[in-house]
């Protein structure tokens, strides 16, 4: 029996990494696009793109898109959306900024406040969704508006400069191995999330609720808890993004977070997260955020109007969703007993087990 087991396991693993599957996977496409983008930019800039400064800037402004993409992914995984990603991040950054600058809050505590404020907002979103049974789209649309208002009330037209939190600023300018610390941080978060979605029970429960709420209920999994956890996680990541803002930007004002909505959706959707819930794609989200960043860099390099970026990203999001639909081949059914070698290939399974 145990001999069988390992043999079956091995064959499953071997199948998982077959070249055919690798080609079919979205991640492969994304890596390819990233490489093409880097090559084009390098050639266009005659190698300038690979200079130390340019690389630093590239990753400096990639950290936040990665984190807010993951924040959106957390809600998409349970079949919800979080329109308030930018509003939560902006509010949390401004709250912590004001407390540090005006109320003399110790800087380390300010950092904690930023993260916890995000978590709290996310949890509130989740609780409202569960208690009112109103669609998360509407709930987060409302909290987005409210939080943007609060953010404006906090800072008004002023910009709170980063002089009040020099320690965070020095973290933001640290460059271990030539890459900004905050980017390493965003990668670490992505790695943690990837592990969590694969192995943590609470995350598997979220995916079960997202994939089939009824099946989850029948298995004793609380969908309410999954929704609150997912919105909480989303808020927490927005809080982390707020912290990265404090580390990397020269100050905070009312416009922080205002332009996060599209990139937050672009990263997970281009990255391969289904809008219907039940699955995540951490690596895909990171890669897609990188692509968006490449588009942004290209825009600057070719000296195009900034509005082009939104146009391109919007079109790419639409295109990805459309391609995803078109590529969805009729799902091959696994037959219990494959009998002929001639047909063995038809029963080959593509692993889609919730996490890509």
């Amino acid at each position, binding site marked *: 029996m145990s001999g069988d*087991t390992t043999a*079956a*396991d091995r*064959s*499953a693993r071997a199948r998982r990494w077959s070249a055919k599957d690798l080609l079919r996977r979205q991640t492969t496409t994304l890596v390819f696009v990233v490489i093409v983008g880097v090559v084009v930019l390098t050639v266009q800039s005659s190698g300038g793109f690979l200079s130390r400064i340019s690389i630093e800037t590239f990753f400096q402004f990639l950290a936040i898109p990665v984190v807010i993409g993951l924040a959106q992914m957390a809600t998409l995984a349970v079949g919800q959306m979080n329109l308030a990603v930018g509003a939560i991040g902006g509010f949390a950054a401004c709250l912590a900024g004001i407390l540090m600058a005006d109320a003399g809050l110790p800087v380390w505590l300010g950092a904690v406040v930023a993260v916890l404020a995000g978590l709290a907002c996310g949890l509130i979103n989740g609780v409202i969704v569960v208690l009112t049974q109103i669609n998360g789209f509407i709930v987060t649309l409302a909290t987005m508006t409210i939080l943007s208002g609060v953010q404006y009330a906090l800072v008004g037209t002023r910009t709170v400069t980063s002089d009040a939190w020099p320690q965070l600023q020095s973290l933001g300018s640290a460059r271990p191995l030539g890459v900004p610390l905050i980017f390493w941080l965003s990668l670490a978060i992505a790695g943690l999330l990837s592990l969590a979605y*694969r*192995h*943590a*029970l*609470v995350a*598997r429960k979220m*995916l*079960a609720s997202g*994939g*089939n709420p*009824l*099946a*989850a*209920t*029948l*298995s*004793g*999994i*609380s969908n309410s808890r999954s929704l609150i956890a997912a919105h909480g996680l989303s808020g927490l990541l927005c809080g982390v993004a707020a912290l990265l803002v404090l580390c990397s930007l020269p100050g905070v004002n009312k416009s922080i977070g205002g332009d996060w909505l599209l990139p937050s959706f672009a990263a997970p959707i281009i990255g391969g997260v289904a809008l219907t819930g*039940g*699955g995540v794609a951490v690596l895909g989200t990171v890669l897609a955020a990188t692509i968006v960043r490449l588009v942004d860099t290209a825009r600057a390099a070719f000296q195009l109007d900034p509005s082009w970026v939104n146009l391109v990203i919007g079109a790419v999001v639409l295109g990805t969703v459309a391609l995803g639909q078109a590529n969805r081949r*009729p*799902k*091959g*059914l*696994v*037959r*219990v*007993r494959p*009998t*002929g070698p*001639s*047909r063995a290939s*038809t029963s080959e*399974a*593509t*692993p*889609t*087990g*919730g996490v890509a």
Partner: protein
Amino acid sequence: MTTTTSSPWALEVRAVSKAFPGVRALDAVNLRLAPGEVHALLGENGAGKSTLIKILTGIQTADTGQILVGGTERVFHSAHEATAAGIGAVHQERNVVTAFTVAENIALGNTPTRHGRVDWRAVRDGARRVLDMLDFRIDPDTPMNRLSPAQTQLVEIARGLYADSAVLLLDEPTASISDNESGLLFDVVHRLTDQGRAVLFVSHKLEEVFAHCRTATVFRDGRSVAEAVQLADVDRDTVVDLLVGRTLAKLDVPDRAPDRTSTPAIELRGVETERGHRSVDLSVHRGEIVGLYGLVGAGRTELAHALLGLDKITGGEVRVSGEVVRIKDVGDALSRHRIGYVTEDRKAEGLFLDQTVARNLTVTVLGQLSNRWGVLRRKAARVAADEYIDSLDIRVSSRDQIVGQLSGGNQQKVSLGKWLAARTDILVIDEPTVGIDVRTKGAFYRLIWDLADQGKAVLVISSDLAEMVTLVDTIAVMQDFEVTGHVANTHDYDEMSKAVIRLVHRTSENVA
């Protein structure tokens, strides 16, 4: 094991009632389940069986009454509490997380963990243990979305076995699986009862009930009309009387003699498909009903899909009324060749559950019911809908009733009706009576006979051999994506089952 000796009953339901707005689903029902027995819970659709199952598994709570597990009174607020109390269940609907693997679905809700981390090895081993019990050879790491409905049902059964419960509730577990697989399931069931566990078996298949259950409780209109009947002491007719509350006229199989001399309405010659069908020969004449029988994974539904252009045909030819055709998609099959397909999974594929009966019935003919500006002629649509509500005897309060509110049998009629509305000549009906009660089944058979008498060619796919023997004229047996033979139906169950089973096992023996 949590069995206590204080009570003779593994599970006792005392005067449980449950009301929904406008409906009294359960009215003081009783049920007693002894350890070591298979107890049948019988009742027509809407009799309250599923409501009781939901209460026993913590999905809903009873308004009044008591539930005792091993002599201790319990109230369950979630499925988890029920499982913890030793009640496992296999639900009627196919409820799985398609993005997960087979193994994770089996363990869902009771996933083994170490320090909050999922113990994947334990998940896989546990899944393999129950899959082996069912002799269901599938890699536990297979993604769920690769499984057919019947395979999915087997996974659901495996899930019920996973928790090692003292009481196992099986809500129509055999509705969509083949006789062979049911056999394996019952082997497991008897093994469990030998270990002193109690099994509650909900089914519409009386043959199975009489073959495997010792006692039965019968529900009718939310009341328990018979409690703990010893099945050895009663006959089938008595049980049917209890079920429907009046004597049901025995189903008369009409003398059918379809004309097989004309050109077949649809004919497959040496058809091969992308899915792996090899040299499939099959023909259905006007007025003939051909049954396609086979085990799960034999490739029956897949063949129907290929026929409708949902899968690619890679070899051989398909002839409609003698002419070789290439069918591109379902729209093509319907409009050019007049082929309709009543799906196996009517809830997921066959109906718009939250729309009205009239809209469902007319969805295939919207083009004909619209004027030249593309605006629907509402009166014509109403007339068309009423016609089929009448002719199929669909029980509705009005044509504007939501389909999701209808009983299973009536939903199936709507699903069939929309293809009739499209004036099809060839009907492919996949598992026509899954989850439909005895009385409605009879009505449905008569309906299919009538359709054949009107000159339609009907291909019925079914895993229910008794249904095949009653309903069709010829049985084609499919095994491993090949048609292994045809048997002319004599309507004699014993004789037919022997002939069919021989054909089912022919290729597997050759291969082995």
